[in-house]
């Protein structure tokens, strides 16, 4: 039996009808046509399905659609503004952080969350924060370099904020 759920996706209020046992990932991909978040392992091992739920990165394959009700969801499609890529997306392209591309949406969404918590992360901070994002091409070094490059770019173009250490 389907129920009606309402939440904000990439800044827009969306109303969907879905079975309560459906995952947020399936709702995003199959009902809202947002196929950026990938269904890799579908069991919380690979994080290619990472989205921000109220600003917090989660595996959307382990979130029931009802858990997003009333909340804000940001997918890779909502990371950029209009047709201008986010500095993180630009850095991934420029630094060779994209190979087959399957892990990239989850990597970028997670890396953006990291910069929200730590604007100036060390490479160890980045490796710790992205440990759950699995890249089967094993292009990790370039991914870390891309995140560092994006962090520098963001720091250079925004007001300095006090650093908050998490890891």
């Amino acid at each position: 039996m389907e129920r009606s759920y309402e939440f904000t996706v990439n800044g827009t209020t969306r109303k969907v009808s879905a079975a309560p046992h459906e995952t947020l990932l399936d709702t995003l991909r199959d009902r809202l046509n947002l196929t950026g978040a990938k269904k890799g392992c579908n069991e919380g091992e690979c994080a290619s399905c990472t989205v921000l739920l109220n600003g917090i990165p989660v595996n959307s394959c382990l979130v029931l659609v009802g858990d997003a009700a009333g909340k804000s969801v940001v997918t890779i499609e909502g990371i950029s503004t209009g047709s201008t890529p986010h500095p993180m997306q630009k850095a991934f392209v420029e630094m060779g952080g994209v190979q087959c591309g399957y892990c990239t949406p989850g990597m970028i969404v997670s890396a953006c969350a990291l910069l929200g918590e730590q604007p100036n992360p060390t490479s160890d901070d980045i490796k710790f924060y992205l440990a759950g994002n699995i890249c089967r091409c094993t292009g990790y070094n370039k991914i870390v370099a891309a995140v560092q490059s994006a962090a520098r770019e963001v720091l250079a173009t925004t007001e300095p904020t006090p650093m908050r250490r998490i890891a």
Partner: protein
Amino acid sequence: MSFSVHEPATLSEALAVLKDEGDATAPLAGGTDLLLRIRRRARKYRSVVNIKFVPGLNELHWDARTGLTIGALTTFRAIETHDSVRAHFPALAEAARVVAGVQLRNLATIGGNLGNASPSADSAPPLVALNATIEIASAAGTRRMPVERCLTGPGRTVLTPGEIFTSILIPAPSPRSGNAYARFSPRSAMDIGIASVAASITLDADRRCTSCRIVLGAVAPVPLRSGMAEGALEGERLTPALLEQAGELAAQAARPISDIRGSADYRRAIVRVLTTRVVALAASRAERMAL
């Protein structure tokens, strides 16, 4: 995979539904274990009771007199980043931060980790070492018991249908005490531990160990206290030779299995090394607290 979802707004509502549905339902916390169990058809439920909307179950509260209260729905990420946890119970912060990845730790809860009762559950050894108690609620009322007694075997706990864990209390640490946790896994991330050790040590003014708890994880069906290792340290100064001896005794106490991640002998060897290191780290933290 189809099931209905109850979304109770209050604890009493949740407990009433759990009572009515009995073993045809399961409480859904972070979902990182339960949803997989259902998806893999390891277990069929008619419904789940999503307790995430129940207020008050995800709060962390530190009180210098009583200690730390951790709501059962507190996520590992909330635990690892909480200042009071890091200051007073580094063992628990160290356990929380090695669980899977950040995304999963934003979902997975400490109550769910205990309820799932995996022998390798990272939260269990530090909670036992820190002498934590757990509160269990059902429609019939609440009861409390040491975490040490709430796990009864792989996937088994003292919970009966209709009961859920609601909160954990870790007593405030005594002066000159320290605690630590370390685990070993074949991969450095996104893996489960093949052996882990948590220790909590209290020293006297003369730097002799007045009490200690040493708990081994992933090497027995449930977290295992090593009474022999604890006994060897109590009343003594913690010399390197004595720490080595405690490691030996802990390794002898371990009852590991052999599986794809490591043989029983390997796990025992890891327990010996981890025990020596973790006790030394807990003791150095105890000394620092005494300064």
